[in-house]
């Protein structure tokens, strides 16, 4: 055991992007279900089109909840969140799960892998279960502040429905400078776009053309694997209409 890299039960990172006022509710909900390791940050949602974003009627503040969960209960967590927060309705938010490759503390890792309530049906959810091919990808574009518009415009062109913008600061060595002895860190936008995997390459390419390193946006674009995802992002237009009709 000592010296070797230890194998643990897999952990996963659950990322939920919900309306601002739901963020706290979601973290309480996770607490209630005994998932104790989660963090909340604030982000901005984007409007569904550029023209509509001019009027500012649809931009919304979002809460992003990052939760560490045991790998074998990911389906369970998704389903309870889906039921509680009705994420199958349009415009309610998205939840997805990203695998964690390594964790720097076996004690904590062990602790996390045991937390949370379990699904009743054990057979269906064991860690060794062979997963289907991943259906979704999480695109992440890191650009100079204020270039998120370019990124979103490019992404929309090729079929992305929406994105979430996180505020950040560049702390890379080539980026920070000094002025009167004070360190200056340029502002950055991180845009998260959850998409079907087959659209991924296309969107990445388009974003790169419009806001990549060779442009003023100076963007880095990368994709993370997403094990599972649910929410309103994958509803196409007809489905939204259908749901609306049903609600009437």
């Amino acid at each position, binding site marked *: 055991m000592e010296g070797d890299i230890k*194998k643990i039960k897999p952990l996963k990172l659950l990322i939920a992007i919900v309306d601002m006022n739901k963020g706290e509710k979601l973290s309480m909900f996770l607490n209630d279900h005994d998932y104790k390791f989660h963090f909340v940050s604030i982000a901005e949602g984007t409007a569904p089109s550029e023209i509509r974003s001019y009027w500012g009627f649809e931009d919304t503040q979002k809460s992003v909840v990052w939760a560490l969960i045991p790998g074998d209960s990911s389906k369970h967590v998704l389903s309870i969140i889906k039921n509680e927060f009705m994420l199958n309705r349009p415009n309610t938010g998205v939840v997805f799960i990203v695998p964690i490759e390594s964790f*720097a503390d076996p004690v904590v890792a062990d602790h996390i892998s045991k937390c949370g309530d379990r699904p009743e049906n054990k057979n269906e959810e064991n860690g060794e279960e062979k997963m289907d091919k991943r259906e979704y990808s999480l695109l992440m574009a890191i650009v100079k502040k204020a270039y998120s518009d370019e990124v979103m415009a490019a992404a929309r062109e090729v079929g992305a429905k929406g994105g979430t913008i996180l505020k950040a*600061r560049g702390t890379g060595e080539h980026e920070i400078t000094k002025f009167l002895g*004070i360190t200056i860190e340029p502002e950055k936008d991180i845009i998260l776009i959850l998409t079907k995997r087959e659209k991924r390459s296309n969107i990445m390419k388009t974003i790169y053309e419009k806001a990549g390193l060779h442009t003023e946006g100076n963007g880095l674009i990368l994709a993370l694997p997403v*094990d599972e995802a649910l929410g309103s992002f994958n509803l196409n237009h007809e489905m939204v209409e259908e749901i609306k009709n049903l609600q009437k």
Partner: protein
Amino acid sequence: MLRNLQKKFLDASISTLPISLTVILASLFFKEINGPLYLIFILGTILLIIGLAIFSLGIDMGLSPIGKNVGSHIVTSKKFFLLILVPLLLGLIIALAEPGIAVISGQLTTDPSVARMITISLASGVGIFLLVSVLRIFFKISLRLVFFFVYGLMLLLAALTQFINPDFVAVALDAGGVTTGAITVPFLMAFTVGIATVAKADKNSDGDENFGTIALCTTGPMIIILLFALSGRIKIFNEPPAQESYSGFLEILKVFGRGFLLYLKDVAISIFPIVLTFVIFQIFALKLKKTQVIRIAIGLLYSYLGLSLFLTGVNVGFLPIGKLLGGLIALSEIRWVLVPFGALVGALMVLAEPSVHALTRQVNELTSGTLPRKLMLILLCLGVSLAMGISLLRSITAISLWWFILPIYALCFILAFFSPKLFTAIAFDSGGVVSGPMTVTFALPFVIGACNAIGGNVFTDAFGTVAMVALAPVLIVMLTGTVYKYYVRKAELGSELEQLPEVKDTVDLVEADATLVVDFDEAELEIDENDMPDKKHQT
């Protein structure tokens, strides 16, 4: 669809209706308040809701982005003269364009040349203190230290004035709240954040570098007026109260129309410096993309229309009934009701204050929700409620303002040692934020009305209301900060004992089981025209 707009209107209604309903319910007890007044008040409430909703959208889209962009630009440009000149000039022109300043200097002298001098001095005061705040943030000087110095100076001058020219103390302390209007406050708050975001915070900061500007900028005018009072060159002239009475519906609409035109002009003047700043910075420095410029322009338009509607609603609709109601309750048999009623009005009124929403939003964003909107609103309500209670007590009993100002300042100074730095900074800012148009055009007339009816001295007993409204929330927020720190410490101690006793200082990396990494084709990561592996999934 339009969710943000819906939300803004919902927020605005929730903010405005409680105070409106309270006022209407209270008015029902008095025959003197008749049909047309109710009609005016209800129309005013509608304008208030529409104005508040649109203005708050305008803050988010126009005023805040400009403030943040300009603020971060003067740091990232790395030009020393920009860092000095921009805050000085910005403070100066913003203050000059604030209609409140002209009103104050008009009240203090009849000589137009002296009035002009007072106006310019007041505006320079704002400019200098904006510079102080910017330099404080940039060089990471402790806000506590700056506050001690600035507020100490202000209190000292006020004490001197008390002996030489006592009428001025309350007027001067009120001036701070008047000079930072509804346009200035959100803009300066965003400007501060813009600077603080790019100038890297030091390790022992807890976010306090994002606040403090509003507090300092309100102190500038106070100090300037006190200096004028000490020089003996000014005296107070009572404005003749404009008594208007209207009956027909058409006449009422006309009054609103006239008011709206007046505030369209006023707001145009006060938003002009910000538009100018943006245009200059956009052409020479910022060079934002077209989409953003369009959004900011629309945001400025919202701010302009929204605030004009809001001010029309509050001035035409709220001011007359406020003044009348204060006087009527004071003359009734149950005069003491003024104090609890004032406290209630104070608590509800602050919700309708436009800058309050900018503050709570900013606080929520910067603390990532540690200090949620609701808590912040409750604290401000409590603070203003306390302030209004005290103000009405003073208007009835003529207790000196000093009995309240001194202990509260003293307590704030002591608490500054215990409250977390972030809370202290937010606390002092919130004072300048809550003393906005609602306070000046509704709360102050209410207290003046009560004071007049009783026959008190308006200058010493009714003025000072704005100062109290700007001071009490400071105390409440700092008290909360102190309590918060106590609980956080307790919780930290508790969790250390309970959890994870065997965390080691050397780390074993742990790997997820390799079998779980699903077929992850590395070729797919490359962005290559020729290679489109994703097509495989589709077919």
